[in-house]
């Protein structure tokens, strides 16, 4: 993953030299995303799914919706759980086995962005209070790696959720019973969009590619909702940001997020 990618010093100094002239290795503007493609219903057997590409980074997300037990302290809410995994075929340095800390962070940041925006209205996902609720699992798998997995997983999850249909269950006294295979759309409140920025030297760049990712001093992922409010944030990497930079990153995230939200919105109920 990101922190283990190997980049030679020459490439890194080239990236920095170009940035000093206001340019990037792949010719993009500093606040420009790579091409984003979103394909929903890639896995027809899942309740919702999406295949998202940001440049050469590719992520597949599948949604599974099934009855589950509620958490003891939130018996009046359904579950939303988001995971992310780097498949070993996504990059030569990825190894099998238990997930490494960077991948655990990835899954948690993606989960938090969607959860904190209250995108999925979990209060409507209750079959019987305190006994049975509907669980929504968004499982992301990274198929090809070229930087910025945070946004790729986030868009894949969001697009997959927007295209999801949920079956209906009723409570029979001791167990949930499937009553309606004729699926309805998931209760959706808002569309969260994350924007990840990297800091290299004194420059802030949007959507770092794999080489840029490996050269970064620090990064920041800011998620905004449909109202243009910021709902989740994660700073990473061993460098720091000034207050002014953090403010600027917030503005960039809301501005670019609005454009990407339009792309995601097009997949609402698309199944």
């Amino acid at each position, binding site marked *: 993953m990101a922190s283990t990618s190997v980049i030679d010093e020459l490439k890194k100094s080239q990236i920095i030299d170009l940035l000093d002239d206001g340019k990037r290795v792949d010719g993009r503007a500093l606040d420009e995303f790579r091409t984003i493609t979103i394909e929903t219903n890639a*896995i*027809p057997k899942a309740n919702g799914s999406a295949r998202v590409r940001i440049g050469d980074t590719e992520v597949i997300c*599948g949604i*599974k919706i099934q009855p589950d037990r509620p958490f003891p302290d939130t018996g009046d809410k359904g579950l939303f759980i988001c*995971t992310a*995994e780097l498949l070993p*075929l*996504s990059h030569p340095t990825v190894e099998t086995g238990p997930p490494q800390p960077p991948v655990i962070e990835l899954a948690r940041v993606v989960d938090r962005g969607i959860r904190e925006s209250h995108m999925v209205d979990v209060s409507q996902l209750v079959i019987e209070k305190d006994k049975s609720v509907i669980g929504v699992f968004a499982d992301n798998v990274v198929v*090809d790696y*070229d930087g910025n997995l945070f946004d790729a997983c986030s868009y894949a999850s969001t697009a997959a959720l927007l295209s999801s249909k949920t079956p209906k269950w009723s409570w029979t006294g001791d167990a949930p019973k499937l009553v309606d295979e004729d699926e309805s759309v998931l209760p959706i409140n808002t569309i969260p969009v994350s924007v990840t920025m990297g800091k290299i030297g004194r420059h802030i760049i949007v959507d770092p590619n794999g080489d840029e990712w490996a050269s970064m001093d620090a990064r920041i992922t800011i998620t905004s909702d449909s109202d243009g409010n910021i709902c989740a944030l994660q700073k990473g990497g061993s460098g720091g940001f000034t207050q002014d930079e953090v403010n600027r990153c917030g503005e960039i995230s809301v501005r670019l997020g609005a454009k990407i939200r339009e792309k995601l919105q097009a997949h609402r109920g698309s199944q």
Partner: protein
Amino acid sequence: MGGRDTTMVLLDENGVRCDGRKIDEPRRIMIKAGGLKNADGSAYIEFGDNKILVGVFGPRDVHPKHMSNTDTGILRVRYHMEPFSVSERKNPAPSRREIEISKVIKEALEPAVMLEKFPRTAVDVFIEVLQADGGTRCAALSAASVALADAGIPMRDMVAACASGKVADTIVLDINNEEDQAGQADMPIGYMPSLEKITLLQLDGILTPDEYKKCVDVGIAGCKIVYELQKKALYEKYFGKGDN
């Protein structure tokens, strides 16, 4: 295999199966060579409703080092299903079933790959089942062969795979999920058509000695169909579409 449900009509009086196929007809098969940027070789297969992605790395250094062999290269295979690939969400951790399938696929590929040319190295094959619908191991093995060839790894032959089985007392080609659940026997076969060698063979279900022979025969015929599609996929990637 599960319960032997006899209520479902698996084969009607005209010899048409539950999904409309004839007894010797495979499901729709689409194989694509390449597609992944970071992998040294890759392939994607759609076999009926199965959707499987395979990436190959190597020959490369072996980690952990003690696994390396000074006389030959080693082949490592991981067969893995995504949590969303089956009806009920699957725990992402590898199951005993996945570990066994990884092993039989590895042993099916080993005779094909000229590992002795790369001592002290490993060739890693990563199989990701995006959607499963019965017969994943055969589809995965067929795609893995194409991905190995795409990685430029010297091979004696490609392994093509297809299952045969017994449904409603009839030997049929390419068992689907319903036939696997409710049928009488399932026999996955991996076969190197040019070398005429079977490298994967499993069976669950009961067959008479005659049915057994018939089943192998039908399965190999299926492998030969898959083999042509494997060659076509490689041809299309390296020589463009056109007459093969």
